[in-house]
Every structure is written in C-alpha cells, then in structure tokens.
C-alpha cells in the first residue's frame, strides 16, 4: 500500500532555479497531495496565507510556545517567556490574561468546552486549572502513586482534558507515556496512556545477541520516545504526534489507548496536532509544513515551508502549535518569529471540506457533486477519487466504482466493485459460455472421427513429428521430464547430452518474459508496480545477474569440492529447474485477472507451490549433477552463499577505488583549469 519513505528536509546551499512554468502569484509555497500510490503531485493552493498576529493588544510575545482555541473563537496563548497566558480574539485584540504571578514557565495550554483553562507549567512542575474568569481553581503536582515511579520527575509540557476533567499530560523526559490524572480527590493518577514502543533494527538485534551483559549495559538504552504534542477531539479521542517515530508519528488513540490510524504520510519533525470541523486531522511540522488528513489518516494536503530569508508571508521558522477555527482557518504559532500565522482555505478546499462533511455523514450521493468539482480542478486528487468510488459503490453503480477505485488504488473498494461486476458478467454469459463449451466438445469429437476415418490431418501431424525430431525441441521437451524426474533428469543432463546452452538460454528467456508479464499484467489487486510504469531493463538485469552470479559462484565452489559437474551441466540443470515457473505461471497470471481479494489465497498457494518446487529441484540438481551426498550439498550451498557475499564485497571495493581515482583526476583537472584561468 501507500507508504512514504523517510522524510528528509535537505537544506542545500546551491544556486539553482526551478523552471518558471506555472507561477502561482501570491502563495509563496506549493501545495501537494498524494495519488493512489503515494506519488506526490502538485495541486491547487489549499490554504492561502491571510495575515499574522504579531501582538496581543499592545503586548508583543516573548516566547510563545503553545496556544489553544476555545469554542467561541478566543485564542489562549501560553507565553513561557512572559510567564502568563494571553487571551485574544482572532484579530489579536486582547481579551484578558491569566496566571500573572502564578505561572513560572507555562509551556502548554488547553481550554475546554466550558472554558476551563488548563496550563502545563514546566518550571513550577504543576498543572494549573483556571475557571473561565481566570481564577485559579486547582493545581496538580507530581502524583504520589507508586505506579507513577518515584524517581520519575513531573515536568508537564503539554496538557489536554476531556469533558469530565481528566487531564492527559505530556511530561518532559517521561517515556512511560501520557500521564493521565483525574480531578477527583485532588488529583488521582489513573495511569499511563498511549505509550510509544521501541523497535530494534536487525543490527541491534544481532548486537544484542553477540554482546555480553556488561557490553550491553554500555549501549545506549533504546527508550521509547516521548510524544511531542497532543490534542483531543469532541468525542474524547486523543491525538498524539511524536518526532521521528515513523508511522507512529501520528496516532489517534481511543479511550483504551489503542491507535486507530496509520497515516499514509508523515513528517519527521511533527510539532503539533489538532482536529478540524470535519473530523479531519491537522499536523504541523516544526519546519512549517502543514499536513491535513481525513479521519482515517489519509493525506489530503501538505503545504507550507520554511522561511529561509525569503520574507514572504505564510512561511515559518519554528512551529509550536496549530489550531483550526470554525471558518476552517489555520493558526500556526511560530515561536521563532514570535507570531501567529493565519491561513484561510481557498474555494478549492471549501469544496473538499463540503464533500468530507457529506461523506462522513453517509450522504454519499450528495457528496458526489462537490467531489466532481474537486476532480474537475484536479483529476489526480486521490482522496476525491476514492470517495467517489465508494459513493458509486453505495449507489450500486459498479462500473463507475471500479473506475474510480482503480484510479485511487483503493483495493478494497476495487475488489468489492469487481466482485459485483464479475457477478453480472457471469450471470449474463454463463449460458452462452456453456453452449460454446458444448459446441467445442462436439466439434472436437467430429474432427477426431474425421481423422480416424479419412486422415485429413495427416499432413499436419507429419509436420509435427518432424518438428519433434529436432534436437532443440527434444531438449526443450526434456525440461518437463526434468521437472517431474529431477534425479533421472540430472543424469540425462550429465551423461546423455540432453541439454544445450541454447536450450537453457531459451528457458531462461521464457522465465524472464514471464516474470515481466507477471509484474505488469497480473490482476490489479496483485500488482506491486504502478499502472503504466515500466522498467524492463532492471527487470531483465536483475534476473540475469542473480542467475549468472549464482551459477558462477556455485561452479567455483563445486570445482574445489570434488564436484563432478561441468559449468555447462550446472548451467543447464539450473535453467531446467525453472521449468515449473514457466509452465504454471501463465495460468496464475490469467487467473489473477479474474479474482477478487477473497480468492487471492488461490494465487498465493500457486505461487508458493512454484517456489517450493523450484527449491527442491535446485537442491536435487546440485546433489545429482555433482554426485554429492546430502551433507555435502548443504555444505556447498552454504559455501556458495559465502562466495557470493565475498564477490559482492569485491565489486564494492573496486567501485569505491575507481570512484576515488576518478575524483582524483577530476580534481587535478579542475585545479589545472583554475590555475590556467589565472
């Protein structure tokens, strides 16, 4: 499915200009969306920069680090430098301030539906709760529950609370997860929530296996990362973002703390998260990129970027918080520029939001109108295609559903639609097909009779038998015998000249052709490559390289291990081993075009069958051609693997040396050019 590789922000000092082809006046950044394969495509501007709030009333920000937007559209800004919470309306007019003299370093602020203000204060090691008038209602320090951990410090960074007042607190350096505190009895610790997990890469696993306990203790402990920021939606679902946690960068956690989504794109430096008015999710990266997802974590837009001295509005330096108001405007708090950037949705985005809203309410037919408009503006827009497909599926218009789900690579939708379409086809064609089969059988019978009586096909058969007499054809035919009788077959290859290079090469060619056909022409559901995307050169190259390297290395090993096979014999035997693939795969390819996801196991079984068969044939070939025992065969196989490793290493070393040499020559020439130039 769609997966984005690591996210990398390259900052290169270069002098290059982009092609000035389509300049969108105004917006300093491009907006991207992904197509069905996760392929990034440009799209219309989703949000245009509107303005920036640089001051609240007459007060400038000192070190703003968090903000929260109330239901009524009032912004609460935590200024860790000024040690207070500034309250303003969406134009930046001051409405009030909270916590002067109480707060030491407010790093997180959250305002609940009833305008209760929760403030996480890192330096004071407390969470303060104020009522809507700004009076201090309660404060919570480190929980004294033993589960919390005695040695664990309590430095709250961010906080949210649900309707009942239960607080979810991210604490600095607390890797156990989000601290959950209930307001009852002056604050009781409910436990840790939404803990991140660590993963070991294969190297670390190997390291751990080899090292002694003492050595292991010296390694950096792999500890789970602390979430960076969190948000809560109307239903009380918690959203967290964690920097550098791959697919878990963005999580949508239910009450039980289970993650409900896997985002199809994510940022390494995500800094804040919030939800919009259509159950859509917004994530801001600290570099100023804003991601908008639908409720399932499918990417709708990504836009924005860093201000590298360009001085244009809408570019950020260090984003700390994101909020979305009732008009779908986005507010980004930039602690470096000390301002709040405001973005407003464009007409394009408004259309998409309308569709999102209708679709989430189950009004599929109605959602088609705005979706169509979205697709008119950008036919590649993945989400719109998918929603369109699903809408048609609901309407039982399966051919249209098939079209859109294929465009959006929505495999489930495609499979469902295909099932229905196939049903209809079967219903319509089953009778004619049956009649055809019957007629065919009758025809064959009649022809057979005619042949018996009059021999009308004799000339044809004569040609056939002549062809059969040719050596090459005989050799090719032998492959099917080899497949069924490998031991005997190997004897034939070794002693009876039943094989030739030509024949082996032909088999190899057939294998390559079939593997390519399999890659590009199997059914949509089995496809691993993009539609319409071909890279035959590397397809052929890989097969040839692997086959030749294996054979050559194996030959080298065999010759010094008393193997009896010559290179030709090995080569031919191995080529013959591919026969099951050549014979069975065509059927698999054809059938794959007729199956839905429910029947995919048939294909998987067939593929497994082919693979196992080939492995057995290879094993027996090595054994028989060289006249080895089983033990010797295993030894040779292991040695071959080792040889290949060494060979690869050798190639790599040569490559490195060569590139060094080239670099040297180039440098000398450059230097000479420079000296002569002076």
């Amino acid at each position, binding site marked *: 499915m769609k997966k984005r590789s690591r996210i990398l922000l390259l*900052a290169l000092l270069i002098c290059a200009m982009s092609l000035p082809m*389509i300049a969108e006046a105004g917006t300093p950044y491009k907006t991207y969306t992904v197509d069905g394969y996760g392929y990034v495509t440009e799209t219309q501007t989703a949000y245009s920069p509107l303005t920036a709030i640089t001051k609240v009333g007459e007060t400038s920000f000192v070190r703003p680090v968090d903000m929260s937007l109330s239901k009524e559209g009032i912004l609460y800004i935590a200024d860790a430098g000024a040690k207070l919470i500034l309250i303003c309306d969406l134009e930046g007019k001051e409405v009030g301030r909270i916590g002067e003299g109480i707060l030491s370093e407010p790093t997180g602020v959250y305002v609940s539906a009833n305008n209760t203000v929760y403030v996480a204060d890192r330096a004071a090691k407390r969470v303060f709760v104020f009522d809507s008038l700004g009076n201090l209602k309660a404060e919570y320090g480190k929980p004294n529950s033993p589960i919390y951990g005695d040695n664990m410090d309590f430095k709250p960074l961010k906080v949210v609370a649900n309707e009942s007042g239960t607080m979810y607190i991210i604490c600095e350096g607390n890797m156990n997860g989000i601290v959950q505190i209930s307001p009852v009895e002056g604050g009781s610790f409910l436990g840790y929530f939404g803990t991140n997990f660590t993963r070991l890469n294969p190297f670390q696993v190997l390291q751990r296996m080899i090292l002694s306990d003492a050595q292991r203790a010296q390694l950096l402990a792999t500890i789970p990362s602390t979430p960076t920021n969190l948000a809560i939606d109307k239903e009380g679902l918690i959203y967290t973002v964690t920097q550098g946690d791959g697919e878990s960068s963005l999580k949508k956690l239910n009450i039980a703390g289970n993650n409900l989504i896997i985002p199809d794109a994510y940022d390494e430096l995500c800094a804040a998260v919030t939800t919009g008015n259509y159950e859509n999710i917004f994530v801001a990266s600290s570099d100023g990129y804003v991601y908008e997802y639908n409720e399932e974590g499918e990417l709708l837009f990504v836009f924005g970027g860093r201000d590298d001295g360009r001085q244009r509005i809408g570019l950020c330096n260090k984003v700390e918080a994101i909020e979305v108001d009732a008009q779908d405007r986005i507010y980004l708090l930039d602690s470096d520029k000390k301002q709040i950037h405001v973005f407003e949705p464009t007409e394009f985005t408004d259309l998409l939001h309308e569709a999102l809203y209708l679709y989430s309410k189950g009004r599929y037919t109605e959602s088609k109108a705005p979706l169509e408009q979205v697709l008119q503006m950008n036919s590649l827009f993945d989400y719109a295609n998918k929603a369109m497909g699903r809408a048609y599926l609901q309407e039982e218009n399966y051919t249209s559903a098939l079209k859109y789900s294929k465009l959006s690579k929505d495999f489930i939708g495609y499979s469902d639609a295909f099932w229905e379409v196939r049903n209809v086809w079967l219903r319509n064609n089953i009778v004619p097909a049956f009649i055809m089969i019957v007629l065919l059988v009758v025809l064959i019978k009649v022809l057979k009779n005619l042949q018996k009586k009059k021999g009308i096909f004799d000339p044809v058969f004569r040609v056939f038998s002549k062809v059969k007499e040719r050596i090459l054809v005989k050799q090719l035919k032998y492959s099917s015998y080899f497949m069924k009788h490998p031991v005997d077959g190997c004897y034939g290859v070794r002693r009876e000249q039943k094989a030739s290079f030509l024949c082996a090469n032909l088999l190899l060619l057939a294998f390559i052709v079939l593997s390519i056909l399999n890659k590009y022409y199997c059914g949509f559901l089995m496809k691993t490559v993009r539609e319409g*995307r071909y890279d035959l050169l590397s397809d052929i190259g890989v097969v040839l390289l692997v086959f030749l390297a294996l054979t050559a290395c194996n030959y080298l090993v065999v010759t010094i291990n008393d193997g009896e096979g010559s290179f030709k014999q090995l080569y031919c035997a191995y080529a013959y081993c591919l026969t099951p693939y050549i014979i069975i795969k065509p059927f698999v390819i054809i059938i794959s075009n007729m199956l839905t996801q429910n029947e995919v196991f048939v294909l998987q079984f067939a593929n497994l069958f082919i693979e196992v068969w080939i492995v057995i044939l290879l094993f027996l070939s090595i054994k028989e051609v060289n006249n080895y025992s089983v033990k010797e065969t295993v030894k040779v196989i292991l040695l071959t693997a080792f040889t290949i490793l060494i060979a690869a290493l050798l190639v790599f070393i040569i490559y490195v040396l060569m590139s060094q040499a080239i*670099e040297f020559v180039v440098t000398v020439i450059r230097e000479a050019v420079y000296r002569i130039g002076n």
Partner: protein
Amino acid sequence: METKKKGKKLWIAIVPICLLLMAGIITVVFRSGVEAEAKNSPIVNAPKGTGSSAALSGAIVPDTTQTINDHKLVAENENYQLYLYESTLSIIVRDKNSGAIMESTVHNDKGLEGTNATWSGFLQSGVVVELQEDTNKLQKKLDLVNSGAKITVNLVKGGFQAKIDYPNYQFGFDMEVLLYDDGSFTASIPEYSIYENSEKQKIGNIYIFPLLGHTYLGEREGYMLIPDGNGALIYLNDKEGRFSAGYSQKVFGSDIGIDESYILSLFWGKYETHNDAEKVLAPIFGMVHTDSELGYLAVIEKGAEEATIWATPNGAYTNYNWTTASFRKSATYVQPTSNSGGSVTKVTDRISYDIQVRYFMVHGKNATYTGLANRYRDYLLEQNELQKSDNSFNIRLDFLGADVENWLLFKKDVTMTTTENIEEIYESLQKQGVVDIISLYKGWQDGGIWDLPVTSFDAGGSIGGNRKLKNLIKSSKEKGIRLYLYQDVMRANPDTSNTTFNTVKKMDKRLYSENTHRDVFEEFVYWTPSKTTSVVNKLVKSFLKNDINQIAFSGISNNLYTYTINDTMRTRQSTRESYEKLISSISEQTDLLLEEPLSCYWKYTDVLIDMPMGDSDYIFTDQSVPFLSMVLKGIIPMYGNYVNFEANKDQYFLKLIETGIFPSFYLTYEDPAKLIYTNSCNIYSSEYRVYRDTIVKYYNELKKADDLIKDSYMIEHEKLDNGLTVVTYNNGVRFYINYSKKDIVMNGITVPAMSYKVGEAE
C-alpha cells in the same frame, strides 16, 4: 559652526511662518474634503500613518529661499527646485506650488540615535559605495561622512557635477545631477569617470540617493512603490519593529552566473516547496508622500541589468523608510577547486556600464501611485519603449501537444493534444460563440515540449506531423484565430541534443545547469546568446519557408545572466544586448510573442503573456496594486497566468476585471493524469471537456466588460475603506469590485458579494 548658527536663526524665522501656513493648508484641505464628500466622490484611501502636523511642517517650505537646511538652490524649473548640500551630496527637491520638499539625507539627530556608525553614515550620505576589499565577501559601506571622501562640486546649467574621490581607497567617480523641464531630474555616473587604482580595493556597489524622500517611523503618510509582480505598496506607517529586512530584488531577476547562494528546501528530499517570487519586470521604484502631496517615480535608464531595488520599511536596520537602487560594479564568487568542497573566493573584474536614474516628480493630485503609473506610461510612449497595438479582447487558450516519459531504454511520447483535437476544440467553441481566440501551441515539436532546442519546423508525428500542423495554422487563420508555435529558445536539453559546446558557463567557469526536480529530464542548460542567435535564425528561416510567421518565444524574454567565454566575463548587459538584437530582428520578420518579457523588450511584442496579476506576498508589503496594468492597459493587451491552477476561481475572475488582464487557459484534449510521469507532471488539471463551460463563461463575461473599455487607459485605481476596489478608465467607465463576502452599497449602487458592477465616473 557659523552655518549652524545661521541655520538656527533661520529656523526661528521659518517656524512661525510654517505654523501660519499649516493652519491655512489644514483649512483648505478640510474644506476640500468636505466638498468632496458632498459630491459623494470616492476619496483616496491614503494609508493612515500616525502622521502629525508637526512632522508635516518640516516637509513644507512655503517660501522660495536660497537655502533649505543648509542646502543651496542649484537649479529650478517651472514646478520644482533642486537644492544641494555639497559636503554630503545631499539634495532637496521642492515643489514650488505647495512648498513640499523631499530630502535625500537624514540630518535629524533624533532619528540617528541608537543607529550604529555604518547606518548613521548611510543615512546621511547622498551616495554610498560598498567597498570590495580583496576577496572579502562582506562589503563595507563607505559613506560621505566617515570615509574621508573628497567632493568637488561644479555647478552646471540645470544642476551640478560632483567629483567624488576616496583617497583612502584610491578610487573615485563623477556624478551628474540635472533637472529637466518635464519635471524630472537625473542622476548619472558615467563609466569613463570611474577609476580604481588599488589592486585590493574596488568598488562593490554604488547606492545613489539612498534616502531620497525618506520618512521617519510613522511620522508621515504615504507609501513606497515596489516593482514586485504587478506592483505593491509599503505604507509609511510605523511598523513597530516587525521586520528585520525589506524588499531587495535584482532588476530583471536573479543572476545565475554569479552565485547568489540561497537555501533550497526540498520537501521529503525531493519536491520543491517554494514558489519563486515575482521577477522585477520594469526597473522602477517610487515614493509618495500623500500628506504633502509630493512623490517621485524613479526609472533606471542605464545600468538596470546590474541594479538592485531596495525598499526598506522602518524598523529594518534603521528607523527610516527608504527606497533606492544600488548598482553592482563588482562581485565575489566562489571558485571550486575540488569536488569535496575545496574552493577560493574571487572577485570579478569591474562590470562596466553607465549608471543613470531618472526621477519623475509628481505633485498635487498626481501624487498617488496612479499618478506614477500615468507618468511612466507617458514616458514609455515618449521614448518609444512601447507602441500602441491592437487591444481587442481575446481569450488565450494554450495547448500542450506532447511530452515524453521513460519507457524501457527509450522515451515514449505522451500525446495530449493533436492538431485534429485543436481543430475540434476551436469548432466546438466557435459554435458557442467563442470566436476571439489567441493560442500558443506548446510541445508541438518532435520529441515533445522538452526536446530543446527546436532548430527547424519539425512537428511531432504523434500530434499529426508537419502537414497537419500547417493545415491547422492555415485553417485557424481563416477562422480569425491567432495560433502561435511556442518554444523555449534559451534552454537546451542535454538528453536530446549535444550540449558539449556553446552552453553558458558561470563566473566560476563551471557549466550552469538548471535542476528540474523531475524524473524524465533532470536538468537543462542554457545556450550562450550567440548560439541562441544562430539556432533561432535557423529556426525562423525554417518557419518562414513553411509559411509560418506566428511564433512565441520564452526563455530569452525574461532571463539575464553573467557568463564566461574563454575565461572572459560577459555581463548581463551584453546578454540583454544580444537578446534584444535577436528579438528585434525576428520581430521584424515575424509576428513574435514573448513570454512575460522584461520591460526592455516590450516594444518588440504586441501581446504580453503571463503578466503577473498580484505580488509575491512579502511580509512587509501592505497593498498589492495593479501598477503595470495601469501603465499598459489600453496600450498592449495583457494575458494572465493560467486559470486552471487557481484555487480561488471567483476571486481570480474579479482580479481579471480589476487588472484589465485577459484570461488564459492551458488545455489538453487528454486527461492530464497521463502526464504524471513526464516532466510536465505539474499540470494536473487541463482537460478541455472539464474547462469548456468555464471558457465560455469567462469569454462572455469578460468580453462584455472589455467592450466598455476598448482601448482606454486605466487612470485611477483605489481601494476604498468600505472594501470596494474602484477602477476608472479615461473614457469614464468605472468598475466597482467587491472581494468581500458581503454586499456593499455605494453611491446608490449595490455591489453584491464577490462580484462587480459597472458605473460611470463623475
């Protein structure tokens, strides 16, 4: 000391007179204001500064005197007087009618407080040189106060000549300032007067009158005009220290030849995320004091290729608002000596060219940006830099013929719009009444749009081949449709042609290549101007042989660069001269269109395509104004960027009405999804079937609006307090445009939300 005392005495005399006059002016202004309101005419919505009458009093010198602030009168004409203070080469321009003055230096101790020595000297000098010391990348500012410069002034008829020598640095030059009868004055530094005797110390950049018309914080009302996109204003209000830098852009775009390093941010390591800022198409900048009703428009007449325009709001560097141009005389560049990062910094030879800036003064009612635009239009027409061409309305429909994608070892054509498709589209549109069409056919050549250079008339087989293309051009002509064949004649594609020789090398003698961040063709190089000339001449010959005379060029129309041939530097000026010569000769032989051309080529094209509609949205600009539209509307038809890629379609439509720019569409017959693996993958929406109805709608509505204007000039443009934008043409037609989401009533006319109304000027 003596002069200072005298100055003080003078002040004592002047202040009471000023106060009296102020009172008078205020009454007059107030009255006229009341009258204006009574007439119900829209009042100019000048930006409101915190301007006080006290600040204004210094800006108006009511009586003609021989000296103002120690400046001596050196020249005068019907409307203006020019005063000079020799020791810092500071000038004052005074409007004789109102007494309003504009000063070119700061001599106000209050404003200089807290400013460091460098900037304080900068603020007090009429000319500032940036010193290029050895290969130091940071250039030191040499002002006339602290650098030990010697100034010898020689008064001449209409102005003065000043010889400026910097004995400490062994260089110097002459500057001449002359006042003309048309109300303009020029400042020029001829190349022959420049001398540099030291090996290590060279002239880096020269700023001329950097503080001309400056204002302090928000003391005054008015704005600076910057040539960003169509035009933008920076108000002279107090910015409260919000900005750390101001506008600073090279005229005619950046120079690829001399590294101007900037940071490229790639999203996910692959995708470019920034849209480039708009290029400076015309070498102009301006300053208007709306309170004292005096302003100027500066036009760089000579040396524009090397100029940078600055407009700095208060709070950035100093407390003053100032705008100027600086001229590059030498620059540093990095010469790499190895692949692993070894390099040395070098300095270019002196870039030789004359410098000349002309300041057009405007006063009274003309002291607005519309006044500046009207003045600039007159100037361009007088200078024959512009010629009036056919301004009738057309809708621009461009077509993409073909592009290629990777396929096996080869490239495969992705055909988007064939000649037959275009015929079909034209016919279907004509049936619906869309008849006035201008088209650019892109990607018509064999090998697709990026198969560059195009050296002969060789149409791609997949779009129909030469014969069908010729037929299409012929039949379009019969239908009255102007169809142009489009190609980039500056770029060359290393994958499709031999680019070993004649390609542009930067100052560091390395080949310049432009990264596309796309898959099929990863980079392009530039032909040198001489190679471009030969390629284009060959191509045009081939076109003419095939009876094709409608062609459109891009690339050379808006790119200038410094480059090297055989280790000798060729300047941007020489590039411009080569291109101009080529363009002028081709435009004589054919009907030539240029894509988003620089102002120096405007006279060679009779249609401007891809005109910017707005500005680049800099944080420090306060208002986007259709300045170039005001200059060009009614003279030469302008076509905007493609409607396809606009997210705010309704707003864009209104913007077309406001700017008088004609609409453009980029069309393909096939679904643009086919383009995803090509270099044109940024075209995600272009299918004709999708846009047919929009085209008809735009055509009908905009044609109706344009029929009212025909080829009138846009003479007034205002954004009113109530949110309406009002555009007035010289035939009396007035458009009221409402961008807001509420209906607005004015003068009895209700302008519905996101809509416009036509009215008449009083």
